C-alpha cells in the first residue's frame, strides 16, 4: 500500500469538445475515494461550474490554469506527497507528464499514484506505443512514424493508401485524419503538425469499415485484471468513438472474438504497467478474424464514464483505490454490497450512447463525421432491445424529434438523395437510414455503403415497418391493432409518437394504453443481471417486462428532480451542479428524492451520490409515467435548463405537481408578450420590441423598433439563430436564414449599442430576494454565455445596482418566484433595461455562489419547497426593499472556453448566439488579476512572449478607435503590434492576410485580436490562429482589459497570486470586517 497523506489531483479545466463533464464525474469519484481513506486532497481545476471544485469533495481547491508554472507553485505551497493525473482527461495527463519531465515531481518528492509515467508515455507516444505492443506480441496496424511532411508522404507510400494520420498527445483525435490520396495527405498534414506537442505523427494503414471495439480494463498493482465493459461502435472504424453510436455490451461478437480481444486488452494493460483503469480500442475484421490494437488511454475517459453508468461499476472510484495500492478483490462492489470489485458486470439490458452535435451554430458548417470529435454532448439510453434504445436516444437528444421515426420520416424525398447522404456519416445519420428504408432501400444496400453491421440496421427496419402500420392503424382489426401497439411500445414508440404518426390526439392514445394496463416497468441496474439480491438505487424504464423491481417506498411522496439532459452549447456542467446541489439539499432536509437524467458524463447520474437514480427520457409522458409508478410528491424543474421550462406547463396541465415557481409564472417570464406586459405594469423599461409572424412585414417592423435590431425566435436558451442587423440591407440578408424557423414567431428588438450587460443570480421566496450581482466585460451583443463576467460588478455603479435590485425585487414579487432565478439587464447612460428573466438555475450560479461564497441553492431548495428564505449571512446588505446582496471585496472573473479548433473549419467570432463550450474562472485580489488568471485558464490562452508580435485589426469603423487604443496599450506593455492590410488600424504596421497566415503557422504571431464578423476578409487568418493554438481575442472591450492587465504585469504593478479558494474567502472576510463592524455600530447607535 502507498502511504500518502496529501494528494494533488489535477482536473481537466474548461469544458471543450472531447473534454467534458465526464472528468467532473471521475474526479469527484476519485476525491471521494481519497477522502474515505482520510487523505487530504488538493484539487487544481479552473472549471468553476463543476461539482468537484467545492470543499465538500476536495479539502483544498485551486482555481488556476492547469500549467506547469501554476502546478509547481501549488506543489511548493501545499507539499503533497502524491499526485493523481488520470482523472482530469488529457489535460491532466499532459500536465502530469510535463511536471515529471521537468523534474518538479522529483524536486518536491511527489509520488505518481497509479500507472507510472513511463507507462503513460508508452501509451501516449505513438512510436513507443507501437514498439511496446509489438514487444508484448500484440498486433498493431502497419504504420510508420514521421517527423515531417516529407517523411509522412514517404511513410504513406510504404504503408499504402488509404492511411490515417494520428497525432500524439491529442484530444478528441484533433489533427488526426484519413487520406485516400497523396494530395489529400499533403493538404492536411500542416494542421496535424501544429497540434502535437511532440511534433511527430504516425501514418497508419486505415482499417476502413473494420469493427471498432473498446474494452475498459481495471488492473491492480499485483497484475489482477478485469474487463469491466466491452463497448461496440455501431459505425465502423474511421468515425471517432466520440462521434459514434456506441452500444454496450458488445452485440455482434462471438465468444471467441470477444475473448480474443479481451485477452489482447489485458496484454495492453500489462504492457503499459497499468495501475488503475484504461480503455483499449481494437479493430476487428470478422470475415478473417484479424484484429489490431489501435490505442489505449491510461486514464479515466469519456468511455470509462459511459462504462460506469452503463454497467453500474464505479470505475473511477475503484481506479483511485487501486492507485493507492488496493487489490481488486479487497474492494467492495458498492452496488451489490456483497460482491467484490474483482468482477465483470453482467448486463440484462442494452445501453446505447448517442452523441449530440451543435454544428448548426457554426459557420461554415462541415458536418461530415470523421476521425476528429465535434460532438458536444451525449445521451445514454437503456432498454431491453435495440429498437427501444434507438428511439429513446433520439428523444433524449432533444433535437425536436419524437423518436427514430416520426412524420418527418414519411415526407417525400428522393431515395437517391438520402443514399447519397448516407455515403458519409453525418450527425443523426440513423434517421436517414430509417428514411432510406421507408423509401425502399434494403438493409444490404445500406450496410454495403456505410459498413454498418446489418444487425444494427434490422431494428431500424422493424421500427419503420411498425411505423408504417401505425399510419394505417385505423384499417386494422381491433385485435391486430392491439398487437401492433404492444409491439410498438416494446420497440420504443411512445404514445406521443404513435399519436403523431397515426394522426390521433395524445390524450386519446395514452388513455387507451393506460386502460389496457400498458405502462412501463421500472427495472434495476445491479451489475449482475439479477443473479444475487442487490440493494440498488439505479433504475430504467422499459415496456419489455412483466413486473417492477422492488421500489423504494416511504410515507411521503417521492420528489423527482429533473436533470438537464444532454449537454449542448448553452447547457453544460453548470446545470448539473444545480441538479446535484438541489438534490444534496433535499437529502439534508430529510426528503425522499430521485433524479431523472440520462447524461452519462455527469455527477447527477452517479448512483453513488444519489439515493435513487432513474435513467429515463425527460418528456412529459415519461415523467408522468414515473410519477404514477412512484406516488410522486412533486417535480423539481429548476436545474433542468430549458427542458424543465418546456415540460413544466404540460406536467402541470396533466396534474403532476411542480414545486417552486409555478408553471404559470415560468410561462409569464418566458413569453415575451406576457413578460413585457408585466414589466409595463411594474414600470420597468426594456428595449423596444415587436413580434413578427409574417416575415414579409419584418422590414417595416424593424424600422419601427429602430435599427440596429436583434432578431430571435421565442423559447431559446443558447441563442440559436439570433441575428443583429444594423440596417435594412443586412436585415434582408438575414431573412433567408429566418425562414428555417417559420413555425415560431420572430421577435425583433432594438439593439442598444455599447450598453453594459449586468446579471443577477437570485433566490426568492416570493417576498424577500437574495441577489448576487455581476456584469460583463464585453458590451451587449455578445451572448452572456460567451461573455467575460466580473464579480463584483466592474462597470456598474452603486446607484445602478440599487435600481437593478429594486427591479429584481418587483419582478420576483410579481411572479411569486419560489426558488432560483436570473435576470439580465442592460445599462446605458444610467438607464436600466430588463432583457431577460429565467425562473430557474442559471449558467452563472456555480460561479456566483463560489465567488460570493454563498450557498445559493441551499436557500433555493428551501424556497422551492415553499419555506421562507430566512437569510442568515451577516455579509448581506439590504440594498433595496427586501432585496439583499452580499458585501464583496475580492474579485472573481469567469471566462468562456471555446472549441474553435475542434469544430473543423468553423469561423471564430462572437455574437448574440452562444458558441463557447465551457467556462473557467479565477479569483483575485483585484479585477485585473482575476481577469488575467481566468483568461489564462481557458485553453489555449497564454501570455504572448514579448518577442512575437501581436496581430490586431478591426472589423469595421465602429471598432477601429477602440482597437487602436488596445494597440497603444500593448505597445506600452512592450509588444510589437501588427495590423492587417485588408482591414487596418491606422498608424500600425500592416501585413497582408496571406503573410499573417504564414506567420501564424510558423508561430511568429503571439496573439490575434479582432472583433465582429468579417470572414470575407480574415477567414484564413482567424482559422489559422485557432488551428495553431494561438490565443485569440474577438472583442474590443475584452482586448482592452486584457492588454491593460498585460501592461500592468510588465510594469510589475499587477501580481498573479496563487491561493486556495478558502484563503481567498478569508481575505474577503478580513477586508469587509471593518465595514461590518461599522454597520453593527450604526445599528447599535440606532437602537
Amino acid at each position, binding site marked *: 500500500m502507498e502511504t500518502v497523506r496529501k494528494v494533488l489531483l489535477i482536473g481537466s479545466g474548461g469544458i471543450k469538445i472531447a473534454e467534458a463533464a465526464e472528468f467532473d464525474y471521475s474526479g469527484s469519484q476519485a476525491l471521494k475515494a481519497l477522502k474515505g481513506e482520510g487523505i487530504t486532497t488538493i484539487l487544481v481545476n479552473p472549471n468553476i461550474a463543476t461539482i468537484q471544485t467545492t470543499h465538500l469533495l476536495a479539502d483544498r481547491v485551486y482555481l488556476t490554469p492547469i500549467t506547469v508554472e501554476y502546478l509547481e507553485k501549488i506543489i511548493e505551497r501545499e507539499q503533497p506527497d502524491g499526485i493523481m493525473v488520470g482523472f482530469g482527461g488529457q489535460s491532466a495527463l499532459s500536465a502530469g507528464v510535463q511536471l515529471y519531465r521537468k523534474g518538479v515531481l522529483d524536486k518536491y518528492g511527489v509520488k505518481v499514484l497509479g500507472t507510472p509515467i513511463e507507462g503513460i508515455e508508452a501509451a501516449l507516444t505513438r512510436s513507443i506505443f507501437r514498439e511496446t505492443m509489438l514487444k508484448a506480441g500484440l498486433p498493431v496496424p502497419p504504420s510508420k512514424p514521421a517527423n515531417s511532411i516529407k517523411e509522412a508522404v514517404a511513410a504513406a507510400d510504404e504503408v499504402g493508401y488509404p492511411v490515417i494520420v494520428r497525432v500524439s498527445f491529442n484530444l478528441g483525435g484533433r489533427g488526426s485524419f484519413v487520406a485516400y490520396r497523396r494530395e489529400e495527405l499533403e493538404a492536411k498534414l500542416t494542421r496535424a503538425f501544429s497540434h502535437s506537442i511532440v511534433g511527430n505523427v504516425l501514418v497508419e494503414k486505415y482499417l476502413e469499415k473494420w469493427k471498432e471495439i473498446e474494452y475498459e480494463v481495471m488492473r491492480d498493482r499485483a497484475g489482477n485484471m478485469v474487463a469491466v465493459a466491452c463497448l461496440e461502435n455501431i459505425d465502423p472504424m474511421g468515425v471517432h468513438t466520440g462521434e459514434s453510436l456506441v452500444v454496450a455490451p458488445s452485440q455482434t461478437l462471438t465468444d471467441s472474438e470477444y475473448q480474443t480481444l479481451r485477452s489482447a486488452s489485458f496484454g495492453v494493460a500489462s504492457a503499459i504497467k497499468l495501475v488503475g483503469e484504461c480503455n483499449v480500442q481494437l479493430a476487428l475484421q470478422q470475415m478473417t478474424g484479424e484484429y489490431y490494437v489501435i490505442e489505449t488511454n491510461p486514464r479515466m475517459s469519456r468511455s470509462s464514464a459511459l462504462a460506469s453508468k452503463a454497467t453500474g461499476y464505479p470505475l473511477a472510484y475503484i481506479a483511485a483505490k487501486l492507485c493507492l495500492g488496493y487489490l481488486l478483490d479487497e474492494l467492495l462492489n458498492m452496488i451489490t454490497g456483497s460482491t467484490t470489485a474483482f468482477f465483470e458486470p453482467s448486463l440484462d439490458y442494452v445501453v446505447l450512447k448517442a452523441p449530440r452535435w451543435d454544428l448548426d451554430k457554426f459557420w461554415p458548417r462541415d458536418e461530415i463525421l470523421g476521425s476528429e470529435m465535434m460532438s458536444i454532448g451525449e445521451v445514454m439510453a437503456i432498454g431491453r432491445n*435495440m429498437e427501444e434504445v434507438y428511439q429513446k436516444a433520439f428523444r433524449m437528444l432533444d433535437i425536436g424529434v419524437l423518436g427514430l421515426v416520426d412524420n418527418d420520416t414519411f415526407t417525400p424525398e428522393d431515395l437517391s438523395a438520402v443514399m447519397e447522404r448516407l455515403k458519409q456519416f453525418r450527425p443523426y445519420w440513423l434517421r436517414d437510414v430509417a428514411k432510406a428504408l421507408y423509401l425502399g432501400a434494403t438493409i444490404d444496400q445500406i450496410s454495403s455503403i456505410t459498413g454498418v453491421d446489418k444487425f444494427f440496421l434490422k431494428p431500424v427496419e422493424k421500427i419503420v415497418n411498425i411505423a408504417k402500420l401505425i399510419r394505417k392503424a385505423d384499417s386494422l382489426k381491433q385485435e391486430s391493432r392491439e398487437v401492433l401497439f404492444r409491439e410498438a411500445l416494446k420497440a420504443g414508440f411512445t404514445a406521443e409518437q404513435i399519436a403523431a404518426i397515426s394522426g390521433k390526439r395524445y390524450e386519446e392514445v395514452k388513455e387507451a394504453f393506460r386502460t389496457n394496463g400498458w405502462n412501463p416497468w421500472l427495472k434495476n441496474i445491479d451489475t449482475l443481471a439479477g443473479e444475487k439480491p442487490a440493494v440498488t438505487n439505479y433504475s430504467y424504464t422499459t415496456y419489455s417486462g412483466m413486473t417492477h423491481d422492488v421500489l423504494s417506498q416511504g410515507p411521503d411522496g417521492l420528489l423527482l428532480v429533473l436533470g438537464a439532459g444532454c449537454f449542448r452549447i448553452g447547457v453544460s456542467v453548470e446545470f448539473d451542479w444545480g441538479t446535484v446541489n438541489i438534490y444534496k439539499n433535499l437529502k439534508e432536509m430529510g426528503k425522499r428524492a430521485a433524479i431523472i437524467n440520462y447524461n452519462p458524463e455527469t455527477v447527477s447520474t452517479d448512483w453513488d451520490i444519489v439515493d435513487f437514480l432513474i435513467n429515463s427520457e425527460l418528456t412529459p409522458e415519461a415523467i408522468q409515467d414515473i410519477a404514477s409508478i412512484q406516488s410522486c410528491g412533486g417535480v423539481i424543474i429548476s436545474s433542468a435548463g430549458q427542458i424543465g421550462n418546456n415540460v413544466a406547463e404540460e406536467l402541470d396541465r396533466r396534474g403532476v405537481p411542480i414545486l417552486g415557481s409555478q408553471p404559470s409564472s415560468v410561462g409569464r417570464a418566458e413569453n415575451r408578450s406576457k413578460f413585457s406586459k408585466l414589466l409595463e405594469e411594474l414600470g420597468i423599461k426594456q428595449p423596444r420590441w415587436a413580434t413578427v409572424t409574417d416575415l414579409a412585414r419584418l422590414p417595416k417592423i424593424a424600422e419601427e423598433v429602430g435599427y440596429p435590431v436583434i432578431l430571435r425566435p421565442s423559447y431559446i436558451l443558447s441563442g440559436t439563430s439570433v441575428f443583429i442587423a444594423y440596417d435594412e440591407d443586412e436585415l434582408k440578408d438575414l431573412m433567408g436564414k429566418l425562414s428555417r424557423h417559420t413555425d415560431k414567431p420572430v421577435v425583433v428588438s432594438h439593439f442598444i449599442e455599447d450598453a453594459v450587460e449586468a446579471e443577477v443570480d437570485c433566490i426568492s421566496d416570493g417576498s424577500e430576494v437574495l441577489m448576487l450581482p455581476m456584469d460583463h466585460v464585453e458590451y451587449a451583443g455578445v451572448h452572456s454565455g460567451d461573455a467575460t463576467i466580473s464579480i463584483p460588478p466592474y462597470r456598474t455603479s452603486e446607484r445602478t445596482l440599487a435600481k437593478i435590485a429594486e427591479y429584481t425585487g418587483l419582478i420576483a414579487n410579481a411572479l411569486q418566484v419560489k426558488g432560483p432565478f436570473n435576470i439580465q439587464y442592460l445599462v446605458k447612460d444610467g438607464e436600466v433595461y430588463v432583457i431577460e428573466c429565467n425562473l430557474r438555475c442559471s449558467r452563472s450560479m456555480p460561479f456566483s455562489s463560489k465567488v460570493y461564497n454563498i450557498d445559493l441553492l441551499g436557500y433555493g431548495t428551501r424556497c422551492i419547497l415553499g419555506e421562507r428564505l430566512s437569510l442568515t449571512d451577516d455579509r448581506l446588505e439590504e440594498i433595496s426593499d427586501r432585496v439583499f446582496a452580499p458585501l464583496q471585496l475580492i474579485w472573481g472573473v469567469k471566462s468562456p472556453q471555446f472549441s474553435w479548433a475542434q469544430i473543423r473549419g468553423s469561423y471564430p467570432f462572437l455574437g448574440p448566439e452562444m458558441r463557447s463550450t465551457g467556462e473557467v474562472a479565477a479569483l483575485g485580489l483585484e479585477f485585473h488579476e482575476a481577469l488575467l488568471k481566468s483568461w489564462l485558464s481557458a485553453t489555449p490562452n497564454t501570455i504572448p512572449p514579448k518577442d512575437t508580435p501581436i496581430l490586431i485589426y478591426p472589423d469595421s469603423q465602429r471598432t477601429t478607435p477602440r482597437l487602436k487604443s488596445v494597440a497603444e496599450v500593448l505597445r506600452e506593455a512592450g509588444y510589437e503590434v501588427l495590423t492587417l492590410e485588408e482591414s487596418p488600424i491606422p498608424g500600425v504596421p500592416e501585413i497582408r492576410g496571406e503573410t499573417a497566415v504564414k506567420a501564424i503557422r510558423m508561430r511568429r504571431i503571439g496573439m490575434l485580436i479582432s472583433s465582429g464578423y468579417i470572414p470575407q476578409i480574415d477567414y484564413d487568418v482567424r482559422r489559422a490562429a485557432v488551428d495553431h493554438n494561438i490565443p485569440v481575442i474577438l472583442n474590443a472591450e475584452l482586448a482592452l482589459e486584457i492588454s491593460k492587465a498585460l501592461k500592468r504585469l510588465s510594469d510589475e504593478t499587477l501580481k498573479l497570486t496563487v491561493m486556495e479558494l478558502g484563503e481567498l474567502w478569508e481575505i474577503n472576510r478580513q477586508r469587509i470586517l471593518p465595514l461590518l463592524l461599522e454597520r453593527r455600530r450604526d445599528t447599535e447607535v440606532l437602537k
Partner: protein
Amino acid sequence: MDECLDGLVKRIAGAYVAALALEDGTFIVGKGFGALGERNGEVVFSTAMNGYTESLTDPSYVGQILILTYPLIGNYGVPPDFESDGIKIEALVVSQATEPSHPRSMKSLSDWLKENSVPGIMDVDTRMLVQQIREMGVMGGAVQVAESLEDISREKLIRKAREVDYDSLVFEYSAYKEPTIFNEGKSSTIVVVDYGVKDGIINRLMGLGYRVVVVPGRLGSDAVFSYNPKGIVISNGPGNPANMHHAIRLVKEVIESGTPTLGVCLGHQLIALALGAETYKMKYGHRGINKACRDLVTGKRVITLQNHGYAVSEESLSGTGLKPWFVDCDDGTIEGLIHESLPVISVQFHPEGRPGPRDANYVFEFFEKMVRRNGDS
C-alpha cells in the same frame, strides 16, 4: 388490403406462441421460436452475455431449461463454435431471439433450435424469472411452443413442470458414444473420462500436445486404463454427482492408480466424493462467465466460466487429503481442490472457457506439469 395489413402485423408479432410453466404454478405466455413441441427440465439461468452457441451445446445442460439473462440472443447467428455435436439444453428462454448477422453464421438461432427439436420461448420477462428462481431456488419447468394458444394446456404444462426431478436422476451421461481418439500419433496419452465432456477441454489437452482418448464413463475403469494414460481428466457433465455411484467408484480407482488426475466441474465433484468428501445442491447455482475466483496457491485472481448447480462442502474436506485450491471471491464456494500428497487436482469452474475468459487456462499447464513430473519419477 386490410387482411394483408393484419398479416403484416402478425409477421412482426411472430408466428408461434409459447408458454413456460414452473413447478410453483407460474405460467407465462410468450412468443415461440425454434421447434414446435413441449419439453421439460430443471430451470436454470446463466448470466453470460455472449457465447450462446457454446452454452447451448454444453452437455452439462442436459436435462435443463436455460434462461439467458442477456436480452438479445442470436445476434451473431450460429457460427460453428460448438462444445458438442448439437444443442443439449431442453428448451431456451430469452427476452428476444434475434436475426443473425455474422460472416461465420450458418443459420439463425431459431432455425438451429428447430433442427435440434428444441423449443424456445421469448418475449418474457427473464429478469423477473431470474429473481423468482433466485428467491425460490431452481425448480422444474416446461416449455411448449405451438401455433396457437388453444393448443397449450396450462394445467398439463404445469403438471409437466412438476414431473421434473432432476436431483434424483442418475445421468452418467456421455458426449461421445464410443471411445474416440484425438491427436493420434502423439506419444503421450491423456484419457478423458466422459460424463458429458465439452470439446473445449479436449482441445486444450490437444493443444498441450497429447494424444487424447475420450472414454465414455459407463465403459468403466478397464477401458480407461487400456489406453495406458499418463494422465486422466474426469470431465464435466450433467446431474447430481452424489447419485453417480458407478462414476464415483471409477474415479476412486483412477485416483488409487496414482495416475495424475484433473477433474473439471462434475469431475471435480466426483473426485471429492471419491475421496470421501460431500457435495450439496446449491440454491440456484453459479452459471456465468464473470465469476471471480482466488487461487490460494499463487494468490492470483481469475475470472472464470462456471456452470454448476452442486458444490463440494468445505467442512467435509477434513480427512480427505483435499485442500481448497480456488475459492469464489464473492461467496467463498470451493472452486478448486488440490490433494496434499496425491497427483490429484480439480476445478469446479471451466478453465478452458468457451464461452468465457481464458484467464484460468493455466490450470491445464499445471496439470501438464503434474503429468510430466509423474512421468519422470
